[in-house]
């Protein structure tokens, strides 16, 4: 690792300072709430609320997905650490418009423990909370233990669809139903070629030999499920797609999907586009129609190098929700 000359202040204050900066990026559309939450201003009274969240250091998600027709708020933890229960509670109270709150976040022990505690206290206060966990990372567990999978870049299309639904539904149950469908229709797989670093220590989150890349590595830099030789984009893309196609979600010719090619940080847009070129060729062969393509660093782990491919299968309902314009720091749509 070369010495990283990060442009920061107190290495232990990164999470709180970046959140203050993020709120500024909303130019008055959103505000800072409590110790670690960002919440949209003037939410419609009675609106069914969508709350996302998780550890910081993965910008622009999760907190960058707060926006119009997206999430109403985000509960943010320290770098790579789930937000504590009281931050979750502060965010919950701020987004709640009397019609219930859906928690939508990645499936990690820390997040589940903290959001669940927040939900319990919120319930005691009379706020109805439901939870949908995101677990799109196919290699992280076999299909029969799907619910043990991690949440990775697939969260972007899932939150986009849930946010569009939250802007239109009248009940929390309806939002939960649609969000579960979006989640169950999304699959991701990724590789990583170089570690990110923990701002507070500058230490890399893992080590990797020079000639291998990690298959199915977590966005926190958790070790992957397998090390494979470093290879060309044209060799790698089919391998990754095969992992998705081998899973329990069937993609038939004629199916329409949203495709996301995500960079974990320092992998360049150039590389993502070269991978996309091959991915599109394979999808075309299979007769799978891409309704919309997202490509860029949406879900990162500091300057970690690596990329992932996510597919979200659309039915008529999801497609209509996808086409709803939205606006946020992480993802906007005309």
């Amino acid at each position, binding site marked *: 690792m070369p010495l990283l000359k990060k442009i920061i202040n107190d290495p232990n204050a990164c999470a709180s300072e970046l959140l203050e900066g993020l709120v500024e990026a909303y130019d008055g559309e959103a505000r800072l709430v409590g110790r670690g939450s960002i919440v949209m201003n003037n939410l419609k009274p009675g609106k069914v609320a969508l709350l996302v969240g998780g550890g910081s250091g993965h910008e622009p998600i999760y907190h960058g997905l707060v926006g119009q027709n997206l999430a109403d708020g985000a509960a943010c933890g320290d770098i790579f650490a789930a937000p504590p229960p009281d931050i979750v509670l502060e965010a919950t109270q701020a987004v709640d418009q009397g019609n219930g709150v859906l928690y939508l976040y990645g499936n990690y022990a820390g997040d589940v423990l903290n959001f669940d505690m927040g939900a319990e206290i919120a319930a005691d206060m009379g706020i109805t909370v439901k939870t949908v966990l995101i677990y799109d990372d196919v290699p992280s567990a076999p299909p029969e233990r799907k619910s043990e999978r991690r949440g990775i870049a697939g969260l972007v299309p899932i939150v986009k669809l849930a946010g569009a639904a939250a802007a239109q539904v009248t009940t929390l149950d309806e939002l939960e139903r649609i969000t579960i469908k979006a989640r169950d229709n999304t699959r991701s797989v990724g590789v990583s070629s170089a570690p990110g670093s923990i701002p507070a*220590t500058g230490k890399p989150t893992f080590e990797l030999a020079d000639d291998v890349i990690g298959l199915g590595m977590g966005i926190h830099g958790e070790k992957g499920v397998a090390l494979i030789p470093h290879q060309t984009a044209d060799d790698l893309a089919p391998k990754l797609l095969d992992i998705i196609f081998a899973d329990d979600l069937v993609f038939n010719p004629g199916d329409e999907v949203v495709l996301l090619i995500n960079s974990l940080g320092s992998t360049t847009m150039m590389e993502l586009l070269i991978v996309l070129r091959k991915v599109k060729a394979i999808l075309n062969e299979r007769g799978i129609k891409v309704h919309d393509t997202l490509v860029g660093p949406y879900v990162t782990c500091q300057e970690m190098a690596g990329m992932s491919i996510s597919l979200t299968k659309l039915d008529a309902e999801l497609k209509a929700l996808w086409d709803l314009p939205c606006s946020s720091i992480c993802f906007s749509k005309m």
Partner: protein
Amino acid sequence: MVLLVADAIIAAEPYLSEADRNLGDGDHGLGMQRGMLSVKEKLAALDAAAPLDKVLSTAGMAMMSSMGGASGVIFGSFYMGGAKAVAGKETLDANGYADFLKAACDTIMARGKAKPGDKTMIDALHPAAATADTVRFLSLPEAAEAVAIAGETGRDESTAMLATLGRAKTLGEASIGFPDAGACSVAIILRTISDFINQ
């Protein structure tokens, strides 16, 4: 005593983060450090005459609301859960220490759904609590030392375990060969307590 534990954990930050780097995301030491710094702050604000359970629950709350991550809830529950068991007690004896550890362990297992063998901090805490239960008749110093050793043994035994919970879960076989980071923290906590009592 709680302050000594805090200092010991803070001093062990690099070691604990390194342990988490092997299996998780490398921030366990940082989270524990964040929590223990908050514990020191909150206890400093607490009046000296505060009863034992108040001290412990204050420490637990401080960790729970400052750390985040899995260990925020887990280690926060350690003190908060344990505190209930020593309510009304002025001082700790072997009996009270056993009650404290059992309550702490039960609370954490209820929250985190981890069982012994899942390769979590439970694998250090559970055997320690069990040992404490069997040595209630001993003097506190003797009991505390027995408990500390049980925690260290549990930490060492977690090395050979296959992770089935938490971040390390997805490693499968690859999770074998490293001790669990949270178990390392438990061992440090129990060791510090024993050394204090025995000094």
